[in-house]
């Protein structure tokens, strides 16, 4: 059975990009303001869930061919490895540092190592949430 709802699908195509953009904004804002990897990941997951609702599991899987279990594992790896970096430098685990850079378009920007940690959290949250949701929505394992 092919499920089609033109209104939902058309709206979704635009909304997904809006939600995604917002989630990335939240991810980067998280260092000083409310936000961060966890909530950013949840917002991204909600965008992807909207895709699943509007289209179907197979279609979305073809568009986004990512194994979400591996995405989650990669996220944890990245987060823990940022901590390992501080082991190499001989400071306490999970110590963070930041520096200001002049980036094109953005101007003077603060980049912190905590952001890499947050990126790992973001990937882990997206991966875990979608693993849970897709495995519940499937009939067979």
């Amino acid at each position, binding site marked *: 059975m092919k499920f089609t709802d033109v209104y939902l699908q058309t709206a979704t195509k635009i909304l997904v990009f809006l939600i995604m953009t917002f989630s990335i904004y939240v991810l980067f804002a998280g260092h000083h303001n409310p936000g961060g990897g966890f909530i950013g990941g949840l917002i991204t997951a909600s965008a992807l869930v909207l895709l699943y609702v509007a289209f179907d599991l197979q279609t979305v899987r073809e568009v986004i061919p990512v194994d979400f279990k591996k995405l989650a594992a990669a996220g*944890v790896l990245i987060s823990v490895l940022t901590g390992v970096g501080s082991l190499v430098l001989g400071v*306490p685990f999970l110590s963070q540092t930041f520096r200001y850079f002049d980036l094109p378009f953005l101007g003077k920007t603060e980049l912190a190592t905590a952001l890499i940690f947050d990126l790992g959290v973001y990937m882990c949250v997206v991966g875990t949430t979608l693993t849970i949701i897709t495995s519940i929505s499937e009939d067979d394992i």
Partner: protein
Amino acid sequence: MSNILIYPIIIPLLTAMVLVFIRDRIKLQQWLTVLSLLATIAISLYTIYYVSTEQIVVLELGGWSAPYGIVLVGDMLAVILVAVASFVSLMCLLYGFQSIELGHKKHFVYPMILILVTGVNGSFLTGDIFNLFVFFEVMLIASYVLIALGGKKIQLRESIKYVLINVISSTLFVIATAYLYAATGTLNMAHLSERIALAGQEGLLTSISFLYLIVFGLKSGLLLFFWLPGSYSAPPPPIAALFAALLTKVGVYTVIRTFTLLFYHKPEITHTVMLWMAALTMILGALGAVSHWEIKKILAYNVIISVGFILFGVAVGTEQSLNGSFFYLIHDMLSKALIFITGGAIINIFGTDKLKEFSGLILFRPLLGWLFFIGVLALAGVPPLSGFVGKVAILQGALSAGELAVSIIGLITSLMVLYSVLKIFIHSFWGETLMSEGQEYSTGKHALLPGTILVVCIFAMGIGAEWVNTYIAQATEVMVNPNLYIEAVLKQISP
């Protein structure tokens, strides 16, 4: 140097995540798991050496100093338990390599075991009571997966109970921690200890301590063990061995930690209640162990009895009995692993765990029989095995503190332990050999290597008790004198 404390947590965690990417390469997964556990053991042994010669190691995560940030604290109690826990997990894994089904191996059984180890090691090392909750959850989530993996009917039934009981106890844990924070304004255990001592442990704090006793009682099987025999007999033998050797012991550790570091001011209330909870645990556990006729159930009830016995020593609370309790805790992790691994091999061989349906294994698998027999003696506390020293120390401490009644209960239940495990031995190894080569469900040979290593350790710990005791005494020193812990963490000299 203080960064050394993080390795027992991140090595298993990182390895677990790498294993997710090589899901189909089982052999490589096994090698990596062994390597990471070996590395963890080596590092924790070095930490023991360092703590014994230098001082308590404290790691302030992210450079945030205590009591504002989260600290990991490696005192003797924690680092010894980390070493033993990692070692015992390695033994259970060596047994599990052959006897875990392929379906499990492809469904992330090794990553989950490593995450379980991460949670266990983290629980031992953390110096922050909320962080303790977090590591507890890491451990529990891994154990939920491990108990349900395979999806047999009994596993699903027991995992629902197990998840429910743990969700309830975790909620209580958070509630208790919230109350404690509201009452004291801190979560750092050293800081908590200082403030509780300053405020005096009045009615409010004592009530909170009872909430913790309920939570940790649920987790460790102290009196509130109704969920335990079912859940521990559901998963396959290697997983059951891992659970028996590690999970309840983390609960026991938390009881030791909270009631020697935080709530030690009103022993006439808290410790007396704990004493009788321990006594009831021993009696009920022993009745359960004696009355059942399935290997898995008998062994699960033995886990409960030993929890009662260890916490009996903690409840008495003298230096000698605490010493004995810690010694017995280490012994119990080793010997429970041994008896569950060899018992699991018996179940593997016969394909059933009902004692009345088999006999005569001694001619078929003599080495397994002897290993199991030594396990039986170790559980009962026969010298020169390691259980003896711990039992003597606990009972001596208890008798000199005047706890005659519970000591007698302890001794009687040890006899019932001996009876219950000898029943397994007699029914499975004695009698007519009904089996010939090729009829068995599984060879059971994979239990021999870890079994032998564990037997050697149990003998070594019993014979070298004097040497082991020098380390244990250092751990007990911190338990009876919490100021050592506080000074190490907060780095200020208390008057």
